[in-house]
């Protein structure tokens, strides 16, 4: 459907939009962010500074951004999709040339006002662009090789730029998030089978190239994979993170040590305890009950998004909703897998909980898009 087909009369307008906001989703987001504040307060040793207070401010700003995005009709966002994608590609190129090197990777671009992580932004704009692309595409041609190739190009271009930064985790997330939109749009499953096979081939190539002059990944990335496969091989070196994180998690037990009673995360055994490894603090202090509760909250967010997508007859809106929801899912699933030793250590934060401004803003804007799709969905009388 093109926006010309929207039955404008059935769409709420003005302040009435407030009643059509998916308030359950907003409540869930606040709950998850609230858990984040609690954890940041705890890892700081019971202090608002340095993490909890800025995080709360950012979340409040993020809520404002979300509502602002939500109240703008979704067709505006669809028309902006191409432009937004183009801008994020430019920013990625900008990082390539002007980016600052932090933690051994070029990821940030300093815009003066904020330090932006273009790869974060790209995760959302890529989903938007693909959703708009398949909305525009003749449904009969969705599985046509030429059009699939175009979609593939849209995914691989930013992924390649991100990989050069180098940020393997985000590149993988981009590819997976894009593939989800393709899958949801109805691209024939044989393509996925073929790409899956090629992916396995690539993994084989990555390992085969190790040590050769055309080595595909950086040495530290290989080491991370090694330690993922066998964390005990280097307990005080690279395997340290995984081992320590599992100890912190496991020592939490059924009900945890209690709020602010965690020893492992508090005693600095864990690196980046306020960002990528914050889940271990939660799991140590609130145990299995706390961990499973956060997982449940996350899954409820996913369920509300899926429900919203199912209800939405607009293709762009539905594809974007499921695309963003799945990207969100990939974030927390990957992060939790990582801290529980199911995935290699890749720099993926726990969405809405980990300390960090850039990711929080982008996520809240993305949920604004989902809300916008929810509010402005075509309704039959």
């Amino acid at each position, binding site marked *: *459907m*093109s926006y010309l*087909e929207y039955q404008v009369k059935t769409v709420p307008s003005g302040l009435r939009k407030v009643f059509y906001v998916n308030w359950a989703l907003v409540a869930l987001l606040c709950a998850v962010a609230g858990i984040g504040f609690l954890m940041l307060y705890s890892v700081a040793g019971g202090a608002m500074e340095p993490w909890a207070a800025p995080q709360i401010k950012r979340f409040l700003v993020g809520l404002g951004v979300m509502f602002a995005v939500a109240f703008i009709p979704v067709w505006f966002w669809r028309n902006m999709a191409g432009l937004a994608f183009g801008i994020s590609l430019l920013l990625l190129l900008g990082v390539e040339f002007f980016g600052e090197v932090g933690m051994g990777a070029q990821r940030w671009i300093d815009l003066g006002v904020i330090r932006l992580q273009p790869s974060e932004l790209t995760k959302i704009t890529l989903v938007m662009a693909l959703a708009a692309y398949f909305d*525009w595409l*003749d*449904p*009969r041609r*969705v599985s046509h090789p030429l059009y699939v190739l175009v979609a593939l190009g849209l995914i691989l271009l930013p992924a390649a730029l991100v990989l050069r930064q180098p940020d393997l985790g985000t590149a993988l997330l981009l590819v997976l998030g894009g593939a*989800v939109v393709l*899958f*949801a*749009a*109805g691209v024939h499953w044989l393509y996925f089978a073929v790409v899956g096979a090629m992916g396995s081939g690539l993994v084989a190539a990555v390992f085969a190239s190790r040590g050769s002059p055309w080595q595909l990944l950086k040495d530290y990335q290989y080491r991370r994979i090694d330690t993922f496969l066998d964390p005990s091989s280097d307990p005080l070196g690279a395997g340290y993170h995984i081992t*320590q994180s*599992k*100890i*912190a*998690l*496991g*020592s*939490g*037990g*059924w009900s945890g040590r209690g709020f602010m009673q965690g*020893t*492992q995360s*508090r*005693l*600095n*055994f*864990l690196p980046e305890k306020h960002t990528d490894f914050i889940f271990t603090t939660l*799991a140590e202090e609130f*145990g*299995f009950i706390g*961990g*499973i509760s956060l*997982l449940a909250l*996350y*899954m409820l967010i*996913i*369920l509300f998004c*899926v429900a919203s*997508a*199912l209800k939405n*007859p607009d*293709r762009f809106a*539905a*594809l974007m909703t*499921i695309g963003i929801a*799945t990207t969100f*899912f990939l974030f927390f*699933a990957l992060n*939790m*897998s990582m801290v*529980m030793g*199911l995935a290699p250590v890749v720099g993926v934060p726990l969405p809405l909980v980990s300390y960090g401004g850039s990711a929080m803003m982008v996520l809240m804007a993305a949920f604004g898009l989902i809300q916008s799709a929810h509010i402005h969905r075509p309704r039959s009388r």
Partner: protein
Amino acid sequence: MKHPQRDTEQSTRKISRRTLVLGGAQLAFAGILALRMRHLQVEQADQYRLMAEENRINIRLIPPTRGLIFDNQGRSLAENEQNYRIVLVREDAGNVEEALARVARIVPLTSDEVERARKEIARRSPFVPVTVADRLTWADVAHVAVNAPALPGITPEVGLSRLYPMGEDFAHVIGYVGPVSDYDLSKLETPDPVLQIPRFQIGKTGVEAKMEDDLRGKAGNKRIEVNAVGRVIREIDRTEGKAGASLQLTVDAGLQNFMQARMAKESAAAVVMDTRNGDLLGIASAPSYDPNKFVRGISVPDYRALTENPYRPLANKTVQGAYPPGSTFKMVTALAALEAGVVSPEDTVWCPGYTEVGGRRFHCWRRGGHGSVALNQSLEQSCDVYFYEIAQRVGIDRIAETARHLGLGARHDLPMSAVTEGLMPDTAWKRENRGAEWVIGDTLNASIGQGFVLTSPLQLAVMTARLASGQAVLPRLIKSVNGLETPVGGGAPLPFAPHNLARIRKGMYSVSNHRRGTGYRSRIVSEDMLMAGKTGTSQVRNITAAERARGVFRNEDLPWHRRDHALFVCFAPYDAPRIAVSVVVEHGGGGSTAAAPIARDIALRALYGEMPPLAAYPSNQRWEAEQRLNALPLRTLQPPSPGRNRA
């Protein structure tokens, strides 16, 4: 673009189907995550809880207090001094340069200290306290404490550090402590974990090093909670360690001080030994150095001054120095000949000033010769030709055996660094080590303590003590460990006929007390303290025929390092020997002029236990002796405190 309605609806249905599939997949993966969480947190919780406990608790060692060292009367020789220092914690101080500058305004800091602190700060983690200034006065520390608000990250601390109150006097005996080096660790197979404590100090030389195991004590430990980077969160509990054992030496600090002072201007060594039990009452090597400088970290110029000094202050000449004994060896040759029965005390030898053996001429020190000499005169006047003659009769192997019975050519087991074995050559030794047969000329050289023979001042003292006592006394330096008396070694009668030993002692008595004796000038006149000695002058160069022809062997005309070593050994009192003394003055010239006067002063100080009475000196030397003794730079000693014997 407008698509046909039918296609669009079909497409939407497909999207819904696929969305459901995606949602289902996500739910399934969430299920896996939940199961994993359950596995880690419920099923394996106990195991991880245990690992977490180990993570959290760290065992730290508490350095033990080092044992104290006392002299034989309980005077302190090595103690642990409270030491005020200021430490800097980088993360609290903020700007390190500024903090150092602020400290420098309050406390005197050398640029060396600042540089050292800066390097250490850069090397350590930000929370590790780094010592900026050490050994501060109480006033300095008070200044820092008062200004604490203006000095973030700077705190005064109190610790223990080694102090040697007798300074230079015991540098060679006790040695000093220093921080553990990698080299120290590499020497040990299973290093005591306490050695890993930063700034822990262990004995580096002397008694401190050799008695390290007793002095160190046992480390205590405390269990502390730490984080992954080692920052201490809190202490959980502690077990106190065991302080190191206190040592009491046989040395008398007063005598030792006197000996060091008496030899201060020379490069010399002296040993005083109790002839009855082998206790070393004094064992001094001059010049000396201040061991406290080494504990504090000696500066490069100071160290260079020590290593470049030709008098070698760092060497402990009493046990490390190996010198040709010269004529002090003649008692050995004489005793060997008497024991072998190849000469009787009355047999005379004609000394024309030289003897010819195998076409080579061996000179007596007295160019005009001694004429007809028997045993007693030969010792008294130190006639070389007499000993050339009897040595040829007895042979080197029997001389060497006698020497070994008297403690020469053997390493005496003392807790001091690099105790030398000396060298007592015989035919077998020369065959093995020089690959040549022993020739008669070697015997002649050895008979007067030249040639291959090398002895340390300690060995000479042992020899003298054994001659005096007739017993195989062994030197002892450690009187007791933690109040437990260390056994006196040796003491078995020597395998020599007592009348032969008495003849030797009689000869030594003549050296010191007969008008023609070489040591007559340095005699003791108190009736109950009469001394018996033997002079020695050992060449460190060969005298060429040309030199001999020109008659140039006045020592004063030679550069210092080519002059003869002066030696003197003695025991006293002659009737009932109590002490044996050996003195070696490196390149001092003649034994009778350079070594004997020192030995007499030392012997008198040891015999009287206080400043020697002038009445003990020959009347014409009293004024000179008084001047000399009064000029000695003696230390005021703390009074002996027998109560601390068993500290």
